[in-house]
């Protein structure tokens, strides 16, 4: 398992292709916060997102913030939510908007493996619940769109040393979640035989 540092947004897909399931990654640059209602608006209600998502790193989040003024927010506590609820948006994010990385906790089910391989995307696993640490790695909230969906807006954060993340699903058809689940289900059969 290798360790990498990647700066987002990326322009060269090689930055994604070098990552393998299980690798450790630290992220620099800019990341975009997105959540259930944000993606429902984009894909189910057909509203174009007012931010460029090309080469982007998306974070499944709904941050805790304090409003400072019009469109200006200060971070209070920013952490990451369960990704599986939002798996069906993966294909569209990659094919229509050029998103390269989705980061969340708990993993994506197997239906994400094929589109991520085809569209050269990765899924990064963050440590769920570790929001106090995550908040220190977010330097600034630079932009907010769709404030009426608070806290499920579209957020642009500048980050420093964001992680450590684990590559959960890579762009080569590898998924740590599928492997762990396959092994666990085999083990269950063994356990059931003993009960």
């Amino acid at each position, binding site marked *: 398992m290798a360790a990498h540092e990647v700066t987002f947004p990326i322009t060269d897909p090689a930055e994604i292709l070098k990552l393998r399931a299980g690798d450790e990654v630290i992220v620099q640059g800019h990341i975009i916060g997105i959540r259930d*209602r944000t993606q429902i608006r984009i894909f189910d209600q057909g509203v174009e997102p007012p931010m460029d998502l090309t080469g982007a790193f998306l974070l499944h989040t709904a941050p805790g913030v304090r409003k400072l003024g019009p469109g200006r927010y200060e971070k209070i506590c920013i952490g990451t939510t369960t990704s599986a609820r939002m798996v069906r948006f993966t294909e569209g994010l990659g094919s229509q908007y050029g998103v390269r990385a989705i980061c969340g906790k708990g993993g994506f089910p197997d239906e994400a493996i094929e589109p991520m391989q085809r569209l050269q995307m990765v899924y990064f696993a963050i440590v*769920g*619940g*570790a929001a106090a*640490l995550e908040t220190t790695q977010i330097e600034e909230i630079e932009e907010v769109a769709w404030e009426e969906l608070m806290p499920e807006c579209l957020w642009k954060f500048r980050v420093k040393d964001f992680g450590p993340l684990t590559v959960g699903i890579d762009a080569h058809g590898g998924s*740590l*979640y599928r492997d762990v689940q396959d092994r666990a289900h085999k*083990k*269950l059969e063994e*356990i059931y035989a003993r009960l």
Partner: protein
Amino acid sequence: MSIVATDLSRTVEDAAAHLYVWALKDIPQDLRDALADAAGRETSVTGQRVLQTILRNVNVAEEEKNLVCQDTGLAVYYCSVGEHFPLHPARIYAALKEGTERATVEHPLRSNTVHTLTRENTGPNVGFRIPIVHWDFVPDWDGLDVKCVPKGSGSENMSFLKMCVPADGVTGIKKFVLESIVGAGGKPCPPGIVGVGIGGSADYAMHLAKEAIARPVGTSNPDPLVAQLEDELKDLLNETGVGPMGLGGDVTVLSVHVENADTHMTLNPVAVNYQCWAARRASAHVALDGSVTYERDA
């Protein structure tokens, strides 16, 4: 309300506001110990990465005086009301609601509560039938104990109920717990506490599972037969290899807590309620004279 009741109402409100924030910022010592112990025995690289990050996070929360997890949850309170406590439960409920709202606005805390159909956010973490309060009434006593257990949605979404039949026996119960936790994978932020409720009725089994997660790690069910089931389930779950955050490893759960009730001869309900590693709980004891003592577990 009498002057005494008005003052007590304000006291309970203050206590609720304090408990909600305290619970969110400061992880109980039993959890810290269990997480450190988990890091001591985890052999996988990804599992170690996760556990070390969790331990680092608990310390950062303390240093930065920040919340451990951004999910401020649904505010859930357990109240034990003494027979001679002068504030009626209706007023206690109102005070808990006020306190939850105040903490949310003053800190500020993220508001999670939405209308269940329109999904519109209701505002300050209160709403119709929110917060959720469970009641217990104690004879020959004049005090009030309030325990705040804010529960995040990542783990609450991993709740499962099965109406096993009597012929499924204890094996059916074990299989259901195992398949539920393996199926949940990394979603509920493992390693955490698995709450299991067995017996009673469908709703009561889930209530018991929820009560079970509020127990400190290291405690056992007083019934030796049930305690044995807790130990066995913990060992079996840690054999599955799901690991920290579902990325593979030795430590899938920190603890399994089972609460039981007798049941109907044709029922065999089993409920599973997962508690993530950030198992937050805080308690207050309110005395008749309005003095408040804060303790982890009242």
